[in-house]
């Protein structure tokens, strides 16, 4: 197990102004059978941005690992995911764990396997604590050029 360094999500490198429909928010209770919703949303949005099949599969797995990096069995609360389209070829996903009232946040080491997967599949990723909530984020850009 390795402690992932706390890093703030850098400001977007895409100068294009983000239109309102380019931000999607999803909030799910922390339940193992609902993490699939985070994957499905990521896949749908990646497809809209023009990611190819392999890139969509990469993002599906990456967002799963993002969620898993914040919660463990027994955690109670909500995962709030914010999907942001960045320019014409990128997606940023920020995931925040909000513990249920009265339940403290546990600082957990992130599984080595999760880190290796995120390192390999996305352009950037990191973790931070914000307002008493744990937060993890990633950024992935499409690799191919659309004619």
């Amino acid at each position, binding site marked *: 197990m390795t402690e992932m360094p706390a890093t703030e999500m850098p400001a977007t490198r895409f100068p294009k102004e983000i239109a309102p429909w380019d931000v999607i928010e999803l909030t799910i209770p922390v339940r*193992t*059978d609902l*993490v*699939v919703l985070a*994957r499905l949303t990521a896949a749908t949005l990646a497809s809209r941005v023009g990611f190819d099949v*392999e890139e969509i*599969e990469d993002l*599906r*797995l990456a967002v*799963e*690992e993002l969620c*898993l990096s914040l919660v463990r069995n027994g955690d109670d609360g909500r995962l709030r995911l914010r999907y942001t389209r960045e320019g014409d070829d990128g997606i940023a996903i920020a995931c925040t764990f909000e513990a249920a009232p009265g339940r403290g946040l546990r600082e957990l080491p992130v*599984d080595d*396997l*999760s880190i*290796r*997967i995120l*390192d*390999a*599949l996305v352009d950037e990723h990191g973790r931070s604590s914000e307002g008493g909530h744990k937060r993890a984020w990633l950024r992935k850009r499409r690799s191919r050029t659309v004619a």
Partner: protein
Amino acid sequence: MEQAFDISEREGTAAPVVSVSGEIDVATAPSLRNRLQARVAGGDTTVVVDLAHVSFLDSTALGVLVGALKRCREAGGDLRLVITEPRILKVFEITGLTEVFSIHPTVDEALEAPPR
């Protein structure tokens, strides 16, 4: 449409074959863990896990397989994997687990593989 998660087991071969289909994630991995633990507890030291029909696999699933591999090897056996989907093999490659597991393209080859 995604294939539903399912586990089936076959005996009567050189080693039991546990076949998994669908997505192995944080919700379904515990079922696989229970089945593999039961196999080793029941005296099977070498087990073949057929992942040919798995469409998604996360770090939780990898953890389950690594744990089962450890138990099999401690008992003097092995855990052999059958992987045919490139995107599933990719997860093992990027995590370095292709160096850890005995990975084969077919169940027959996994069953006939020499001990590691």
